[in-house]
């Protein structure tokens, strides 16, 4: 008899997921571990690592740990979410530059926030509506995330770095960072 695999809920919804409280903001990133959740879309890794390097250089953040989702179109699996929550103080997740991955990226951010970890979800501006809709479906219509200029996949490394630098003020605002080095 064939074994049935558990179906993933593409919205990431489950019982008790209606809480909309943001996690406490850190004010300072000094020494904090940054979790980078890469959804495997092109240029995600470079975008995330560039932002993390800026947070380390300019704001004294500690280690940056890169994690990779196994599929961009659904929310992060519970086991990986728990690992990141255990190991990281703040999370940045990227990049939602398509319909399903923008929705999943926002869902990921909401899941981390509900687990108590301040998170910045990054989509592209062409898929802002998709991210906002997922936030509403998740019961968190006011979820604050950042949308970089579309496209992302076709950019050169230098262009990705420019996108990252442009994102910095919003990343800091969403994380609630008020202190530099």
């Amino acid at each position, binding site marked *: 008899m064939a074994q049935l695999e558990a179906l993933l809920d593409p919205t990431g919804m489950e019982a008790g997921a209606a809480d909309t409280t943001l996690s406490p903001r850190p004010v300072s990133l000094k020494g904090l571990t940054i979790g980078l959740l890469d959804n495997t879309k092109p240029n995600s890794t470079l975008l995330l690592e560039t932002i993390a390097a800026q947070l380390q250089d300019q704001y004294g953040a500690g280690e940056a740990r890169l994690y990779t989702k196994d599929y961009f179109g659904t929310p992060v699996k519970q086991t990986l979410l728990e690992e990141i929550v255990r190991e990281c103080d703040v999370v940045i997740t990227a990049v939602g530059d*398509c*319909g399903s991955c923008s*929705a999943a990226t926002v869902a990921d951010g909401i899941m981390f926030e509900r687990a108590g970890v301040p998170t910045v979800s990054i989509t592209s501006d062409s*898929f802002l509506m*998709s991210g*906002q*809709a997922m936030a509403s479906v998740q019961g968190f219509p006011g979820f604050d995330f950042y949308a970089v200029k579309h496209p992302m996949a076709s950019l050169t490394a230098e262009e990705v770095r420019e996108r990252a630098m442009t994102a910095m003020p919003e990343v800091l605002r969403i994380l609630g960072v008020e202190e530099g080095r």
Partner: protein
Amino acid sequence: MTEATKPQTVDEALQQFTDMMAADGYVLSWEPSDPQRIVVRIDATEGACADCLVPVNVMEAIMAKALEPTPYALDHVILPAEAAH
């Protein structure tokens, strides 16, 4: 009725989402199902990203929100056959 409160047409209300779908290779169309409701249809073009469609409940949330400035409500969304199951 003033210009500021004039209801949008469905095409105006769905334009941003039409553009968003086009970025993933999908074409959006719509038709009335009754005088107050419309059905939104999503069709794939040859180059469509099969993994990029949002879940149907998210799609319907987007559509319902987008239609708020119009006199119409969403009836339902029809996804391409390969994405609908």
